[in-house]
């Protein structure tokens, strides 16, 4: 038995083993991710089947309808504002909370639990609570502003404040989740770094900017990817708080997709919007992983 033939036979058997081990994960991935993505792409080039009428090939008509649909562009604009607000706000807040509870302060466990509680609550429950907060005239926020003598305001009912109101709910929910990651990362930092900085006479801000922040970059990249995904994924509260109104002021892209697909049953048009959403998110993810990754300092 020569060494090379046995190694070839061995490597053949090894690759069969490798493929068999990969098979369960591969089956799930293909069934729930790759195949639906391809099927959606194909569906977006057909018309919507209705009752007894089958789907026919219409080419890029669904995309043309999408480009002319003012509600779609409103949804894109809303979602960009939503992302621009939630991503820095939730990451910044999470970092702030993590740095604060990392210290040995009294009641540390309680504060950590308090910060993490919004994450544990289901979004629908959270939205119902905030619906009460925002109710005009006798909601919690109104009672506070009323006690301060400020005029009553319909937060969810006016287009200028409705998007801000739902953004606040999303930030409130997300920040605790990201805080956990930052807290874990902070606790893995070498304590001698802090002692060295103290000896050198560095201020807390300097220590944070030059030591902690660069060392937290891997976590920040991870949190950033999550925050971007959440900016497009978190629409549960819209169903409860505003249902996309007033006059589409809080319609986010995924919510518009749901309405078109499951309220109007225009499945072909919904497929077109899905393709756009997937393309946008994939390009953001690719950018994050290939460009930003190079700038991250790994230990």
């Amino acid at each position, binding site marked *: 038995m020569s060494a090379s033939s046995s190694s070839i036979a061995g490597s053949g058997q090894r690759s069969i083993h490798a493929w068999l081990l990969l098979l369960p994960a591969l089956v799930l991935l293909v069934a729930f991710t790759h195949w639906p993505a391809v099927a959606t792409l194909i569906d977006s080039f057909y018309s919507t089947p*209705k*009752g*007894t009428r089958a789907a026919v090939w219409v080419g890029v008509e669904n995309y043309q309808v999408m480009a002319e649909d003012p509600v779609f562009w409103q949804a894109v604009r809303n979602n960009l504002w939503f992302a621009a607000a939630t991503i820095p706000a939730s990451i910044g807040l999470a970092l702030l909370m993590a740095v604060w509870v990392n210290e040995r302060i009294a009641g540390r466990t309680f504060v950590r639990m308090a910060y993490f509680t919004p994450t544990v609550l289901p979004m629908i429950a959270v939205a119902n609570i905030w619906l009460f907060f925002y*109710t*005009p*005239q*006798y909601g919690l926020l109104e009672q506070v502003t*009323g006690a301060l*003598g400020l*005029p*009553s305001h*319909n937060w*969810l*009912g*006016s*287009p200028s404040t409705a998007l801000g109101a739902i953004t606040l709910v999303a930030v409130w929910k997300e920040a605790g989740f990201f805080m956990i990651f930052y807290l874990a990362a902070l606790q893995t930092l070498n304590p001698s770094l802090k002692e060295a900085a103290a000896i050198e006479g560095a201020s807390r801000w300097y220590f944070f900017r030059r030591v902690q922040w660069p060392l937290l970059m891997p976590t920040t990249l991870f949190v950033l990817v999550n925050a971007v995904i959440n900016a497009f994924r978190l629409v549960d509260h819209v169903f409860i708080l*505003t*249902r996309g*109104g*007033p*006059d*589409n002021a809080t319609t986010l892209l995924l919510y518009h997709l749901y*309405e078109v697909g*499951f*309220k*109007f*049953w*225009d499945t072909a048009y919904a497929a077109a919007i899905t393709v756009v959403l997937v393309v946008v998110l994939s390009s953001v993810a690719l950018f994050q992983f290939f460009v930003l990754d190079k700038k991250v300092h790994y230990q």
Partner: protein
Amino acid sequence: MQRNMFLKTLAASAAAMLSLGAGLAHAADPLEVPFYYPVAVGGPITKVIDGYASDFNKAHPQYKITPIYAGTYQETIVKALTANKSGKAPATSVLLSTDMFTLIDEDAIVPIDDFAKTDADKAWLKGFYPAFMANSQTGGKTWGVPFQRSTVVMYYNKNAFKEAGLDPNKAPATWKELSEAAKKLTKKDASGNVTQYGIQIPSTGFAYWMLQTLTTPNDVLLANEAGTKVTFDNPKVIEALDYWVNLTKEGVHPKGVIEWGTTPKDFLEKKAAIIVTTTGNLTNIKANAKFDFGVGQIAGNVRKGGSPTGGGNFYIFKKAPKEQQQAAFEFAKWVTAPERAAQWSMDSGYVAVSPAAYDTPILKKYGQDFPQALVARDQLPVSVAEFSTHDNQRVTKVLNDAVQAALNGTKTSAQAMKDAQKEADRILRSYQ
């Protein structure tokens, strides 16, 4: 050794449970009939519906109606159509009467006439109020059985009326009287903030329905009977919407878009002296109001009064097995029989669906003790059909968005309605 014992005990108990379960399953086998229903009004509605289902199941032991709460009307039709498209349609569902065209287009429902074969059945089908059948029939066939039907009414706070120097036994009957009453009823505190609005008309969820309470008195309809054309840009419609917008500008109506679900609570909390909402909220308000309140018909303008009808019908789904469809028909017949329709009207505040129900002793007595319950029914002769077209959810959303834009001041009424007309024409083009 211990592991083997554990595994053996586990297997034995599983086998025992399976055989017991199988034995139980064969013991009594009523036909399970899934039934989706929404709740659009306040009060313990799920308890009431569950009560009706269990009463029916006791009277008909071969059937087992399984009521499944499905959220709002909009959520319920999503659930019903999703189930239908995946092949497992419910036997029956209570859905908006206006969804009739959408359900027919999706080939999801069967006509009720196919089940009403005996003379008694045919008489029952003819016994409903004609105003409710307007949204239930098309193409010469009946597609839905009226169940929780309503008209829009004005609830008014009698104490607030007395304080403002208005006659507490007379609701405003014209737009002029309504504006004047609203001005007198609006109360402000020392710093100029409003503590009680004169009138409140909600604009989420059913903005189009509330708009109909203003367009109908202005003698204009929003859609044709076949559901293929809409008339949003008619000057009378724009005038009606302007009346609503002007109420907000005059400060007697809260600004912005008003939530449907919290409007009854606003009335109970005395934040609004008059609210315009469905009669289905009557029992809820009656149970919780700490003040004397009255119910008035919708105020007239060019035309005396005029509310749209509203509410939900029973539909029977095509893809459900034939026995389930038959069971659903029996349930619909049973629960809309005069005595039960009367009971349902008292439990909820919805209008009882047939004149025969109002002749039953319990509802006669209820009407004498509590005349507010009869107002919604008395409006029926001047009521019109609820707005309904093909692709109903989409066209309704266009109209809702337009009303919300006008109320928020982001568009003028005329511009909002013109844009809505353009969009609706585009959607309905393929049905004309």
